[in-house]
């Protein structure tokens, strides 16, 4: 494997469109639930252990060679909010375009043909990691990091926080990121023998509810 490929995949400058999404933090800021660095850290921790774990499990399973179309169904079942399904597929479509150019593979081409409207983003991320020769746990790390790095960056813009504080909180969450990525990779291994239901489905009621509230806004800075 090439460790450099992991840096490229996890880099916010990788042209996959993630910067347009706030991971629910724009809605949380509007509700006053996130208003400073501490509440942002609590938000990121909650997200990390819910959708972060679920997305990382899907990414690790895709990187490990699970059928990406079955994983796409599993992602739908784990994403009851239509706004979040739409965002995941839009991000998946953008990442697929970038990944096909960066890490060409027959599996990515096949997915592009089978899901012209886009597959869920973590599955594309996992397949891209696979094409780059990375391990499932690497894909899990990239998914988890993006899952909380995105909201942290968005909150800096929304609340004019000190970017150094945001970096600090991401560093403090480091050990939990390790735990979540390892748990996701373990589950992906189990799913090989036990079936796809062994993948995590951790969820958060507020992220689902506020995603739909946010989608109904007429003016918003972020797409989700």
């Amino acid at each position, binding site marked *: 494997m090439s460790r450099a490929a992991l840096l490229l995949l996890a880099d916010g400058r990788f042209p996959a469109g993630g910067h347009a999404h706030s991971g629910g933090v724009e809605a949380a800021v509007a509700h006053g639930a996130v208003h400073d660095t501490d509440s942002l850290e609590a938000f990121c921790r*909650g997200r990390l252990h819910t959708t972060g774990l679920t997305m990382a499990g899907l990414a690790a399973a895709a990187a490990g060679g699970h059928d990406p179309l079955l994983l796409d169904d599993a992602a739908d079942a784990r994403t009851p909010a*239509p706004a979040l399904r739409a965002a995941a597929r839009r991000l998946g479509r953008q990442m697929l375009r970038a990944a096909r150019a960066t890490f060409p593979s027959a599996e990515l081409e096949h997915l592009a043909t089978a899901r012209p409207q886009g597959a869920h983003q973590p599955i594309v991320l996992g397949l891209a990691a696979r094409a780059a020769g990375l391990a499932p746990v690497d894909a899990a790390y990239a998914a988890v990091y993006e899952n909380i790095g995105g909201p942290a960056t968005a909150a800096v813009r929304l609340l004019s926080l000190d970017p150094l504080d945001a970096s600090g909180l991401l560093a403090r969450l480091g050990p939990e990121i390790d735990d979540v990525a390892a748990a996701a990779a373990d589950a992906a291994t189990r799913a090989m023998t036990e079936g796809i239901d062994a993948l995590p489905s951790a969820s958060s009621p*507020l992220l689902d*509810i*506020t995603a739909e509230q946010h989608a109904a806004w007429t003016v918003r800075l972020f797409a989700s």
Partner: protein
Amino acid sequence: MSPSSRLASARATSDLDVPPAGAQEPAGHPDGVRATARIRAAHNGRVTTLPQLRSDGPFHLRRMRTDGNAATVGIIGAMSAPLGGDRLTLDITAEDRAELEVITAAATLALRGPTTEAATYDVRLTAGEHAHLLWLPQPLISAAGSNLRQTYTVELAATSRFVLREEQVLGRADEEPGHIVSRILVHRAGRPLLDQQTAYGAPEPGWDGPAVLNRHRAVGQLLVVDPRVHVRRGPILLGEGIKDGCAVLAPLANGPALLATAVAPTTSILRELLDEAHAHAFTR
């Protein structure tokens, strides 16, 4: 109450559905109750019948009424459960064309019990072709010090109709909740329709924060699967803001299904939101 007296009271309040003493007491945690209650509804060509109604442990089953073609079964708590270490299973099946509604007489209260080990509470719900199955229990209360793993495993045939309402109250009045991990896994015609796990209470990281519950203490869902409901419309938002309780009703991806998810400061507001969602779900 000691484990032995809990079992004794279960025997005293259960009826002939319970096997005679001496033929039971399956292995489990030494301090826990192990029980599997079963409800099977069938359709005899005219009405729904109940060929199997097997009470066990804390689940005392009672046929409530027959309303036209449908049967209603009430679950009456025969002992305090679930307590730590208990292994409880409810196995509920509506066979082809049967119409079955299952309710509980009172809220289910998860308590600490004699051990800090988790209790398990598995509810298996199966609906055959053209069957109609409704699971409408009273809320589940996670009391301080309790530890519960709840699992819903739902298998639906393509033409079945299904309603599930699930309400969780985190702590009795002004107490911290116990630890409750709950998963709902629904397959319809062999495909995954819904798979969600929630985990609340210490030691879960971030559960009370702005991304998960934001200090709400009542949380619930209403799932409606019905080939006849209109699921093409957009999501419906209920409640204002997030402080006083709010919900969304929206279509799922892989079937004719609507899911309402609600959070609220109290159980009465939660029920109002879910009732409102229910009314919207069945409005044409």
